[in-house]
């Protein structure tokens, strides 16, 4: 939920509560005030009637709710409290054929002769339900006006205010490390946003610096180890030519040499990774993947037959052509095929499907559950303790994909096969 919708949600709930409470209180005050007024009027009428009745006894006898709106009825002799009783009653009214509320004052009085009488004075009063309904309607109107105006203010004013925030947010959203897209300066009069932007930029700069340093470190470390590795490897090679060595020593040296070769391979892959990340491959051209795959599969043929893994290529008439670095396309396919081969089982299968928009390399494996796509591209990730794997093959693949905007990769597990698909970025699968 967007920020201004969020505030609007709570504001509209808050306003409805506040307005309801307000209308109740206001109604109570209003009716109180109105009744007070009416009652004052009734009291005034009462004292005038009693005065008149006192002066003119005949006045007492002929009054019973005529045009005057009061009635006097005699009471049996006795003691009566001279109290004013107010009440609101519903009475049928001719004029609009319905019951209407009427305010009544009931009291007793004594005439000149000491006889007691009851006096009732009526006056029509406010229609409470109508009043309440009117209040309700006007408050409802007020409510909607408030909500709409808040929404509009939010929409136009706050939107304008938040625009720089959203822009900043967007910049961060599309930020990828190493791409050096520092957020654009968005001018905003709001201090908090300016601060936020400044801090974000500072953070990005720090991250970039650290990233850069780490990259340089890996690259330097890999580079600097090339020469010592060469020396060790070559010295060992020279050493094994020594005829004095016995079998046991030879086997020891062989074991050292083997580990060393592994280290050298690892180092080479790390160097390759850094080089790709540093974008040292920019020889862009139209690469025909059908051709590249064909050539590499041919190179691998001995290996396939040695490991008795069968390979099957299905391709459309229209080739899959992508504009990218040719060397990287070769490394990409090599690593995918190597991956498919290393993790395969004896007399397993590798299937390559090439269409004009993608190619998929799928392989059977001893590992018969889907892999976690979030992990497989990590450096030195291994699904099993496979000694043949450097743990860098798929990391290389992913890095190539990352620096090549035209292609994307996806992994899925289908029909007991691990499938890696390289597709034209933006291509929609059915």
């Amino acid at each position, binding site marked *: 939920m967007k920020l201004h919708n969020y505030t609007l949600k709570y504001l509209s709930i808050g306003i409805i509560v506040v307005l309801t409470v307000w209308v109740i209180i206001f109604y109570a005050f209003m009716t109180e005030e109105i009744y007070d007024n009416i009652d004052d009027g009734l009291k005034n009428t009462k004292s005038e009637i009693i005065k008149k009745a006192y002066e003119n006894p005949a006045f007492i006898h002929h009054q019973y709710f005529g045009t005057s709106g009061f009635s006097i009825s005699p009471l049996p002799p006795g003691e009566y409290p001279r109290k004013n009783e107010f009440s609101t009653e519903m009475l049928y009214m001719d004029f609009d054929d319905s019951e209407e509320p009427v305010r009544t004052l009931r009291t007793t009085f004594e005439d000149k002769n000491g006889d007691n009488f009851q006096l009732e004075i009526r006056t029509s009063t406010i229609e409470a339900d109508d009043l309440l309904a009117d209040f309700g309607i006007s408050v409802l109107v007020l409510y909607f006006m408030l909500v709409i105006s808040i929404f509009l203010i939010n929409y136009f004013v706050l939107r304008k205010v938040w625009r720089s925030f959203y822009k900043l947010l967007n910049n961060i959203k599309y930020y990828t490390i190493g791409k050096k897209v520092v957020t654009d300066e968005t001018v905003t009069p709001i201090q908090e946003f300016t601060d936020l932007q400044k801090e974000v930029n500072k953070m990005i700069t720090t991250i970039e610096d650290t990233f850069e340093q780490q990259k340089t470190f890996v690259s330097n470390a890999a*580079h600097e180890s*090339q*020469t010592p*590795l*060469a*020396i060790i*490897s*070559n*010295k060992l*090679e*020279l050493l*094994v*030519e020594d005829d004095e060595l016995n*079998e046991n020593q*030879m*086997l020891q*040296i*062989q074991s050292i*040499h*083997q580990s060393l*070769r*592994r280290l*050298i*391979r690892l180092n*080479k892959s790390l*160097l390759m990774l850094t*080089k790709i990340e540093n974008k*040292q491959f920019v*020889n862009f051209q139209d690469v025909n993947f059908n051709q590249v795959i064909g050539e*590499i599969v041919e*190179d*691998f043929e*001995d*290996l396939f037959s*040695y*490991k008795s893994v069968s390979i099957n290529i299905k391709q459309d008439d229209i080739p899959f052509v992508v504009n990218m670095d040719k*060397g990287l396309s070769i490394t990409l396919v*090599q690593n995918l095929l*190597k991956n498919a081969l*290393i993790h395969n089982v004896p007399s397993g299968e590798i299937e390559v499907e090439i269409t004009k928009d993608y190619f998929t390399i799928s392989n059977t494996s001893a590992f018969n559950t889907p892999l976690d796509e979030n992990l497989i591209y990590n450096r030195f990730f291994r699904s099993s303790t496979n*000694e*043949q794997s450097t743990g860098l093959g798929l990391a290389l693949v992913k890095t190539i994909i990352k620096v090549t905007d035209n292609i994307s990769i996806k992994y899925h597990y289908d029909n007991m096969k691990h499938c890696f698909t390289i597709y034209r970025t933006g291509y929609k699968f059915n």
Partner: protein
Amino acid sequence: MKVLVIEDEKELREVITQSLEKECYIVEQASTFKEGINKLAGYDYDCILLDIMLPDGSGIDLLRELKSMNKEDSVIIISAKDSIDDKVLGLELGADDYLIKPFHLSELLARIKSVLRRKNQQGFQSLKWNNIEIFVDERSVLVDSHAMVLNNKEFELLYYFVVNANRLVTKSSIAEQIWGDNMDEADSYDFVYSQVKNLRKKLKNHQADVNIQSVYGMGYKLTNE
């Protein structure tokens, strides 16, 4: 054969020198740009191994100097930098080959021999070992003047053995040399074994006067029968 090794790393320079001396080459060393240029100006070499990154200058500049002297010495660049640009530039400037560190000594030897062969015979020469004759450019092999049919990989393998005759060639070096980077996995050693077995069988069938001797699982050595 005179070879000059221009390499600032002492250990590497010496190990290369030792290896080449086993081939009865006359090897001289230079550790800096300056030393290198002095040697180049004063003497002629059949082959120069040139490191690109020297403490007091670039091997590339040294190569330029050499070419401006109109010298015919063959040059093999040995560099830790696996950069396509450097490679292209080096070869454009007239280097004969480009080898990336770390390399196998047997590979270095094969490259040197190949460069020398091209230089001395204008690219046409057969390589002889007892009764085996290898025609590198035609990619054909004669045993006692009878053709022996080998597939591509077997030919490469035999050539690699003959070039490194009487020396131990490690399995990993064979794997890398013949199957390239794709074949650097651990079980490649078994794979090499099966390929060598095939080659041995063919050589035996053709009564080739040669023995591919395996050395404690480390590698192989081509020797006289």
